[in-house]
């Protein structure tokens, strides 16, 4: 098998140029699919027979919740690559992921709370999914806190990478223990949503929004990655050439 493409990803100038070339593609595709998804979500999809118009917040809530986990997984995978192959660019990817992921997690919590106000009649429920999401936010904050407190950049990279890997092992354990805890304490009358079969006109916009948010994350990650690489390589000789072109 040819590993050339992988070795090239270890080179900051190559990745910088690649990121610059790919950013508009992801950005525009994300914008277009988000417009399409929002059109489907707000105009085409019928109102839910139980939850009325309020259910439409799910078109933002579900994708942000999905992204919060996906970004964490991406971050941990990049951190593991950085630890194993000592790849500087991989650490830069992990560093760029964390604030984006924390923002998605916060958005998922905020929309979940807004969703809960009309549906549950309360702004906050210790629902297992919301609780896991809150803990995920703490994991992101811990990661960023650790990265921010270590002055030496290489040590910061490697220490926070270990933490990301430890965190990704723990996320499922935390999720299932919270679900188990919740099944004991919560009255079973809490409304369950999300799982029942959705008609196509409701489901299609949701899938498009998922795609749009994934592309949005990719575009955001590439922009942040470029900034991160520029900052880390600021003394390198290739920087002035690249910035001129």
């Amino acid at each position: 098998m040819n590993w050339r493409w992988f070795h090239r990803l270890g080179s900051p100038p190559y990745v910088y140029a690649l990121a610059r070339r790919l950013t508009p593609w992801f950005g525009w595709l994300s914008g277009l699919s988000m417009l399409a998804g929002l059109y489907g979500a707000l105009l085409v999809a019928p109102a839910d027979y139980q939850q009325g118009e309020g259910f439409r917040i799910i078109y933002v809530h579900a994708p942000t919740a999905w992204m919060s986990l996906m970004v964490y997984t991406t971050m941990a995978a990049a951190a593991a690559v950085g630890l194993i192959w000592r790849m500087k660019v991989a650490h830069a990817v992990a560093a760029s992921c964390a604030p984006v992921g924390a923002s998605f997690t916060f958005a998922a919590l905020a929309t979940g709370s807004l969703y809960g106000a009309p549906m549950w009649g309360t702004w906050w429920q210790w629902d297992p999914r919301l609780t896991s999401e809150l803990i995920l936010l703490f994991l992101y904050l811990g990661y960023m806190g650790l990265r921010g407190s270590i002055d030496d950049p290489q040590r910061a990279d490697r220490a926070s990478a270990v933490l990301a890997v430890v965190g990704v092992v723990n996320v499922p354990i935390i999720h299932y223990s919270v679900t188990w805890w919740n099944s004991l304490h919560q009255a079973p009358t809490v409304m369950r949503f999300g799982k029942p079969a959705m008609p196509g006109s409701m489901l299609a916009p949701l899938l498009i929004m998922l795609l749009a948010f994934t592309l949005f994350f990719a575009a955001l990650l590439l922009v942040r990655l470029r900034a991160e690489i520029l900052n880390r390589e600021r003394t390198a000789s290739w920087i002035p050439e690249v910035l001129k072109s």
Partner: protein
Amino acid sequence: MSSHAATIAAAGHIAPGTAGAADAGRLVLLRDLKLAFRRPGQLIQPLAFFAIVTTLFPLAVSPELSRLRAVAPGVLWVAALLASLLALESLFRDDAYDGTLEQYALSGQPLTWLVFAKTATHWLLTGLPLALLAPLAALSLGAPPQSLGAIVICVGVGTVALSLIGSVGAALTLGIRRSGVLLALLTLPLSLPVLIFGARATELAMRGESFVAPLELLGALAVLGVTLAPLAAAAGVRISLE
């Protein structure tokens, strides 16, 4: 300094030519115990903290035993979690300052194993005493006397997992100034499963029901911690030595 002499002695004794890995682990454990017992004041601190925190609740909530009984499992576990956390900061700190950890890393013995020995010391000096103190606190919060044995077992097993999770956080925050709050931020979210299963087992024990299922899950967490946490903690220690 006495700890310095012990350092050199320990580092010399654990070299692979002189000692096998098992001996090295035992020597590290004995050295840490010896150093800890030379400063008994520091040993008492987490226990006093645990006692004070559990005393705060009757004052803050209500002195009625019926109401305290309802919150007792949660109070016990939150207090145990915080007390264990409090003692974590010093787990590697002194050894990092005086160079002992560096000697361990250079000794040729598996660092994972030595880190595990240090974590075991942390449990012997914090987890085990907490488990022995927990029934007293539980009794004052209205736990029925026949549940006290179960509480010792639950806290004993749960603190094994807490010490191991904490060792990872302590290793990663080595060398950071004022790392206490950060250590809490890193360790507490990862400790939540222990808190959940521990409090549940204690609650069932206090009601006189079978607490085997959550206790087994606590045991599973402890076993998982034994297998994985020392690896991550040793990686953290190595990174801090770079």
